[in-house]
């Protein structure tokens, strides 16, 4: 297959030494195997995620994503925009939809962008990395690159919210999407069937502002994975990954549980199965080590 090129929007959490830097490391390793070239949008900015709304309001928020689209149109005009972060993907897609639906908003947004000499059309397709994998490669092709199948691992596919709603992945249902389970299977592991928390909310940004309410949700997400016999959780979202992984000690303290469940990205699983070593797969970025994957990666 020929090299595939995309206009890449990494997002704040994927930057060096940021909270999802391990995600980026594993995405790079995965793309190396699949011969994907990610052309970073020059000087991209934050999308304001799902929490900036109350500080910024509507138009300033849309202007943020519009600036990224405008820069992408200049630098990588013939490529689809691809994001690895659920919130980045959602905010950019939402902005595109809003601008095309409402001519006044499009006009006002361009009026704002003109302050920095920019102009947006918003015609580039905006996609999540998972869509690239499923639609531009397909499970069969993805499976061909597996060198070390993740045999004997039972993994709960936690899709979460924003990679799934409101846009979701084509052909998947909002209530019971299967793509993550299929990816797990393609890598040679066993997906957890009937994982009832697979699209439940982890609290998102409110894990910071409403920690107790959010941790109650997170507890259920982890507990249900344990109940099904999973030894690991996999997710496509940086906020899901962080929220479900890093508060386990606090949850154990509060609820008397003994959680120690590794939470990894689909790209972590894929780079390990594709033969990358632990560092290349970002396994050193786990707060709760994924020992099962380390064993395979360091073979």
């Amino acid at each position, binding site marked *: 297959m020929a090299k595939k090129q995309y206009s890449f929007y990494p997002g704040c959490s994927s930057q060096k030494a940021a909270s999802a830097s391990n995600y980026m490391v594993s995405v790079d390793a995965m793309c190396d195997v699949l011969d994907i070239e990610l052309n970073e949008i020059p000087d991209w900015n934050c999308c304001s995620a799902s929490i900036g709304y*109350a500080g*910024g309001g509507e138009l300033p928020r849309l202007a943020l994503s519009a600036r990224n689209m405008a820069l992408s149109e200049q630098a990588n005009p013939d490529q689809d925009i691809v994001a690895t972060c659920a919130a980045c993907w959602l905010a950019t897609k939402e902005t595109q939809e809003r601008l095309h639906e409402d001519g006044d908003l499009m006009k006002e*947004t361009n009026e704002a962008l003109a302050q920095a000499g920019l102009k947006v059309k918003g015609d580039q397709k905006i996609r999540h990395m998972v869509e690239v994998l499923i639609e531009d490669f397909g499970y069969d092709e993805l499976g061909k690159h597996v060198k070390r199948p993740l045999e004997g691992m039972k993994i709960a596919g936690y899709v979460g919210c924003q990679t799934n709603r409101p846009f979701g992945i084509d052909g998947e249902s909002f209530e019971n999407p299967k793509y993550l389970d299929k990816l797990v299977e393609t890598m040679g592991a066993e997906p957890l069937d009937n994982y009832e928390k697979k699209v439940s909310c982890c609290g998102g940004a409110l894990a910071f502002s409403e920690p107790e309410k959010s941790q109650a949700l997170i507890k259920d997400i982890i507990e249900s994975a344990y109940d099904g016999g999973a030894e690991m959780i996999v997710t496509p979202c940086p906020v899901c990954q962080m929220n479900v992984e890093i508060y386990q000690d606090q949850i154990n303290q509060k609820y008397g549980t003994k959680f120690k469940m590794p939470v990894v990205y689909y790209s972590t699983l894929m780079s390990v199965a594709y033969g990358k070593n632990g560092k290349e797969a970002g396994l050193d970025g786990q707060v709760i080590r994924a020992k099962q994957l380390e064993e395979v990666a360091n073979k």
Partner: protein
Amino acid sequence: MSDLNTQMVEQYRNSFLREVEANVEEGDWVKMCMQCGVCSGSCPFGPHWEHPPQELFMMIRAGKREEVLTSSSMWMCTSCYNCIVRCPRELPITHIMHGLATYAKRLGMAPKEQPTMKFAQKFWDNLSKTGRVNELKLGISLYFMNGFSEGVKTSLKMKDIGLNMMKAKRLNPMEAVGGHKCKDAKGLQAILKKAQEIEEGRIANSGYAK
């Protein structure tokens, strides 16, 4: 519909609904709610809402301006989008909740100590300074948002999480002095300033804002 009838409908429509339609993001959808309650039943924070979305929609139509805008309810939205995909009438409920919260804050009517409101503002200030989020500064400002002594307590409580993240190289202490940023942060700020001006102008001219 006759002109007179149209005129009467316009004249007697509840004015808070019209205010919401004019000034709240996606507010013109509110009248479409059919009160089925699927949104309220689908919300992960459902039990924590004083007035769940379905109720807020009815309250808006009933003109309960003060009760709606001073409520903490819409600040409970986690942006999970469950309500959006399940609403039989396809109301963009998540956005309306964000819009109501933002509007209440804009009018100075939101509860003063609402933690998500404070966090949202800190997040916005943080990102608009350099164009990219500085996670270290955001975290620290969040711990200290309820004053110094509360901040020390929260920092101690969160110490292990911070250390774990640093050990995993997912939190950089050096962000305290520098950190990631856009090269054209000035241009970005000019864009945001203009967008804010346009939006404020739009609301000021709608005839309802204070």
